[in-house]
């Protein structure tokens, strides 16, 4: 699969500038690859499909292969695929939780969108994680410090942004927690005492602490019961509307994707096999695998 390079797409945008001047992608991902394991001379090249993407010689696994996509301001991009398709690895690589093996990532609000953020120093990456991106994990234990207070969890993000005024930090924490409907009386309770849905909402408010223009959500509603799931979905939609945050939403649940995503990407064995408008992907899937996936929907 060969998609236009970043330069090409910029030129194309230049041509379309009159029609839509605000259409500059906030996130551009080019040829993102992630391999688990060291790789060896016998590993098959990335473009060759083989079961499990696992090298029989060295056991290395290609989890993400040549991923290319753009995300626009205020847009929600859905990522679907079965377990092991590389969905989580993709967002974790974007959030620098995993070191991408190769590839480029550009964010328009960061260094003017001209620097490949995957190649930045550890300090720069930390800055980007705190200011430019927010991440919400499926497992709240990954995103929260469970035994510290909820307001403290948000404060931690604000410290990273050099805010050291307790009064103002608490105001901001109250504002954020109020936004995700955590009662103010409970803002100093540790998240471990909260229900799963509340933990997810605290995690979302923590991710939003420094007003990032980009939010990555990895299976945030998985494991929540249906009514709680509905509230979290509504929250995500209203956040997008009010804060104009762009989001990458990873889910194996097509219902969640239908409710949230403007566009959807289908991953299989680490490759993007189809990408398009969400309703088109769900109602008129082109690829055999997507059809199988959609038709398995209850």
């Amino acid at each position, binding site marked *: 699969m060969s998609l236009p390079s970043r330069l090409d797409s910029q030129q194309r945008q230049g041509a379309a500038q009159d029609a839509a001047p605000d259409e500059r992608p906030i996130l551009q991902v080019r040829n993102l690859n992630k391999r688990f394991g060291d790789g060896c001379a016998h590993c098959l090249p990335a473009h060759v499909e083989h079961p499990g993407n696992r090298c029989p010689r060295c056991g290395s696994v290609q989890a993400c292969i040549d991923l290319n996509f753009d995300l626009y301001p205020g847009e929600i991009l859905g990522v679907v695929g079965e377990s092991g398709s590389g969905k989580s690895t993709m967002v974790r690589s974007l959030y620098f939780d995993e070191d991408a093996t190769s590839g480029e990532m550009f964010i328009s609000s960061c260094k003017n969108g001209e620097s490949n953020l995957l190649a930045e120093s550890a300090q720069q990456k930390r800055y980007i994680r705190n200011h430019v991106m927010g991440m919400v994990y499926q497992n709240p234990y990954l995103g929260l410090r469970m035994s510290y207070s909820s307001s403290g969890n948000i404060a931690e993000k604000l410290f990273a942004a050099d805010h050291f005024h307790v009064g103002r930090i608490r105001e901001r924490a109250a504002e954020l927690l109020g936004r995700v409907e955590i009662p103010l009386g409970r803002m100093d309770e540790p998240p471990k005492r909260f229900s799963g849905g509340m933990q997810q909402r605290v995690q979302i408010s923590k991710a939003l602490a420094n007003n990032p223009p980009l939010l990555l959500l990895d299976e945030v509603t998985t494991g929540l019961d249906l009514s709680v799931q*509905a509230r979290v979905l509504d929250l995500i939609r209203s956040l997008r509307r009010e804060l104009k945050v762009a989001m990458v939403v990873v889910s194996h649940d097509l219902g969640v994707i239908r409710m949230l995503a403007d566009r959807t990407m289908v991953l299989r064995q680490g490759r993007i096999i189809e990408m398009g408008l969400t309703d*088109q992907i769900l109602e008129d899937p082109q690829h055999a695998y997507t*059809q199988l996936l959609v038709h398995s929907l209850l």
Partner: protein
Amino acid sequence: MLEVVNLTKSFELHVSQVGKVYPIQGLSFHIRQGRFLGIAGPSGIGKSTILKCIFRTYMPSSGEVWYDSLHEGRVDLAQADDRQMIRLRERELGYVSQFLKVIPRVPAVDIVAERLLPLGWSQDDARREAERMLERLRIPRKLWQAFPATFSGGEQQRVNLARAFIVRPRLMILDEPTASLDRETTSAVIEMLQAMKREGTTMVGIFHDWDVMEQVADEILDITLSGGGTMRPKPAAAGAQAE
């Protein structure tokens, strides 16, 4: 306003091994600004497929769907990129299906108001406008704050219509919007469609009910079994009522 040229849509079903299905083949028609085109034909012949190809829920297999956009010039909807479709759907295209698909546990009024927010409306203005819309579609005031999932089929369908009408799209695509409505509500919907037509909205739609079709349509497109279609003016008999 909308010109469909040689539209073909085939479905290749990889899963069930039926092979290729061609509901629409070489279909051409056009709609002029402010007109209402009704699509007629026996059930299962692919009427909805045409509408979905225009709205790009279905990806046309070949052919062109030219739309004169207010903001983006003349656009081939069959070729437009996803982002352009998203913009057009936000501002210019409306689509009403037979089913309401929304996030559960959001009050009806917010579901309707939500459509205005990307267009720059404030939360309060949008909510007031949504209430006006629900009023017009005769949804009882006590249901405004309730969740649509608990509504009857007819009430859900009216919320669905309110969601589509509130943004006043330039081109309205209607896929059996009156299917589950009672007589009174149906006439309310017809009144609304006629009012929108007077305001200059171009519309294309399918109605299971021939009476409704006669009341609103200016022209009828008959779909034939071969997947093509022929245009004819609306039957004169019902004309007086609609004009």
